[in-house]
């Protein structure tokens, strides 16, 4: 707000002098326009992509292994010269097979973080970071700044071969950031890490994205990981890619397409911490009253005001939500919410019930027997219920990162 008004004022006073200066200071790309129109044949399948993406934060790319999602990144990076068609970034043509145009990966200003980190074993942490920085003109980031962004300052002189998996990936990200790309590609960067380390990494990466305003494409086969990190999602299936949708919509669309573990995806606002009860209360996106709240195990014991007001991406698996026709007063289950059934989808083994609370959709997976016994129909008013620890979020709560 304040920078906006400063900009506006200065442009009114002297449109030619002050404004370019301000723009130059903020010249880091905050939006990447990626145009893809290519095909690439493999033995078993052909990847065909025709899509324009406006990447402002992090777009997730989801698909099973072998679906072609990593190849998609490699084409954008310039590591698949065989691709036929066109690729352009921010109106710069990167390749065009029609006139044999091909910009080499080292000239594309695109960063790529590999699943297997690929650190240079003969160089220290600091030297790995300097490798990208040295080859970059017009640097805006300092190595020290990136070391602190990635919590690596204390291990900068270590040999990279002695690092843990999470530390290696932090070095890999730091190294890519220092090459100052216009777009950062991440190919399953945290898939080899345990859940706690993965949470740390995702929290750090999200923080980096917000601080540097760097557009990213993030490939993963884990929807919950993507749900935490990305604001939009593309689904790759046998080389075909879907259009980008908002993350919650994309995940809900997958439910009705027979996703093996259907889930509710939503962003909740942290309302209050209740240390006496060990719970944190979060408000539904369109909450009118405190009743439209979801409780989950308390997020922060100390510094408990830290997260208040923040949006937290959460996942509740449909198998963890049950339905009741009356309000349960004598249950240990914490979350009871009045809802309206909007759809029931029967499969061979169970029923997937879609419920609305205001504008928010929820999904509950119940047995065919329960659906029949309770005589559930659309438009029926019911209660949905789930335990506090059925609410999953990758948010990492420890304020410090252990080395």
């Amino acid at each position: 707000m304040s920078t906006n008004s400063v900009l506006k004022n200065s442009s009114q006073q002297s449109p030619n002098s002050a404004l370019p200066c301000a723009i130059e200071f903020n010249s880091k790309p905050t939006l990447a326009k990626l145009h893809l129109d290519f095909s690439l044949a493999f033995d078993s399948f052909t990847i065909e992509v025709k899509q324009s993406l406006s990447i402002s934060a992090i777009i997730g790319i989801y698909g099973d292994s072998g679906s072609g999602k990593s190849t998609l990144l490699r084409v954008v990076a310039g590591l698949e010269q065989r691709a036929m068609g066109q690729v352009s970034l921010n109106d710069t043509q990167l390749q065009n097979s029609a006139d044999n145009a091909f910009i080499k990966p080292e000239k594309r200003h695109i960063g790529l973080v590999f699943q297997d980190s690929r650190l240079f074993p003969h160089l220290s942490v600091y030297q790995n970071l300097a490798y990208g920085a040295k080859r970059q003109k017009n640097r805006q980031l300092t190595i020290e700044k990136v070391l602190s962004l990635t919590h690596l300052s204390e291990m900068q002189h270590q040999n990279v071969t002695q690092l843990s998996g999470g530390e290696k990936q932090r070095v890999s990200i730091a190294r890519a950031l220092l090459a100052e790309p216009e777009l950062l590609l991440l190919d399953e960067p945290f898939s080899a890490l345990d859940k706690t380390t993965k949470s740390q990494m995702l929290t750090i990466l999200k923080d980096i994205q917000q601080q540097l305003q760097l557009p990213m494409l993030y490939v993963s086969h884990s929807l919950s990981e993507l749900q935490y990190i990305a604001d939009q999602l593309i689904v790759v299936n046998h080389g075909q890619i879907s259009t980008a949708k908002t993350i919650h919509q994309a995940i809900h669309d997958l439910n009705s397409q027979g996703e093996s573990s259907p889930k509710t995806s939503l962003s909740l606002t942290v309302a209050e911490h209740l240390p006496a009860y060990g719970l944190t209360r979060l408000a539904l996106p369109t909450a009118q009253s405190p009743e439209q709240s979801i409780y989950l195990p308390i997020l922060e014991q100390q510094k408990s005001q830290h997260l208040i007001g923040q949006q937290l991406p959460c996942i509740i698996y449909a198998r963890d939500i049950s339905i009741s026709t009356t309000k349960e007063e004598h249950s240990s289950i914490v979350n009871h919410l009045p809802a309206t059934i909007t759809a029931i989808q029967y499969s061979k083994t169970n029923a997937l019930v879609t419920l609305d609370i205001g504008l928010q959709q929820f999904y509950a997976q119940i047995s065919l027997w329960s659906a029949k016994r309770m005589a559930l129909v659309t438009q029926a008013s019911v209660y949905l219920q789930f335990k506090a620890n059925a609410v999953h979020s990758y948010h990492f709560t420890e304020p410090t990162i252990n080395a």
Partner: protein
Amino acid sequence: MTDISSDILALTTTLKMAAITTVILLLLGTPLAWYLAKWQSRLKVFFEAIVALPIVLPPTVLGFYLLLAFSPTSLPGQIWQSATGNQLAFSFSAIVIGSVLYSLPFVVQPLQKAFEQLGDQHLEAAAMLGAGPIDRFFSIVLPLTKASFVTATALGFAHTVGEFGIVLMIGGNIPGETRVLSIALFDHVEAFNYANAHWLSAGLLMSSLLLLSWVYFLGNNFNKKQHRSISP
């Protein structure tokens, strides 16, 4: 000329030939090994076989064909003569060219194996950080394959010092020009000059043994380091 001074002359000729040959081999062999390591074609095995030929072929076979090619009546010999003004056969240049061909597999094979093992992973990472092909070679490939470069250099050098058949065929026996240690040794034996033959033989044996021990020592050390750094 005394035997000692002629043997010393043969030694310097040998070292000069081996040093020049090794430099040429590294300059030619490195890109050749690189292309063989990266090339994916069915023709590749044919070229690998050509490079490996000197290992199995009697040196005299190679020497015979080179002698024909280097003679002033054949095209390569004529081109050389018109470019330099000197005859190619029985010259120092001839034995260097012959040595390059003869020792080629000993330089190309270890380098090719090292480049294949290195793979593309680190090179792709370096490219994504803005390093061009030459930059990648010196900043990534060379430091990560230096053990193989030491091996290739030492084997190329030692094998060139030890050659006999090719030099005999295309070099003749001109002191200071093409008379190398192995030929000097042969001369001593033919003249029943066993004392000098012993000196030369033992000298060659010991120096080769020392050189190879040093190479394996370095290779072991590099491997240990490499192993530590590659294992996760």
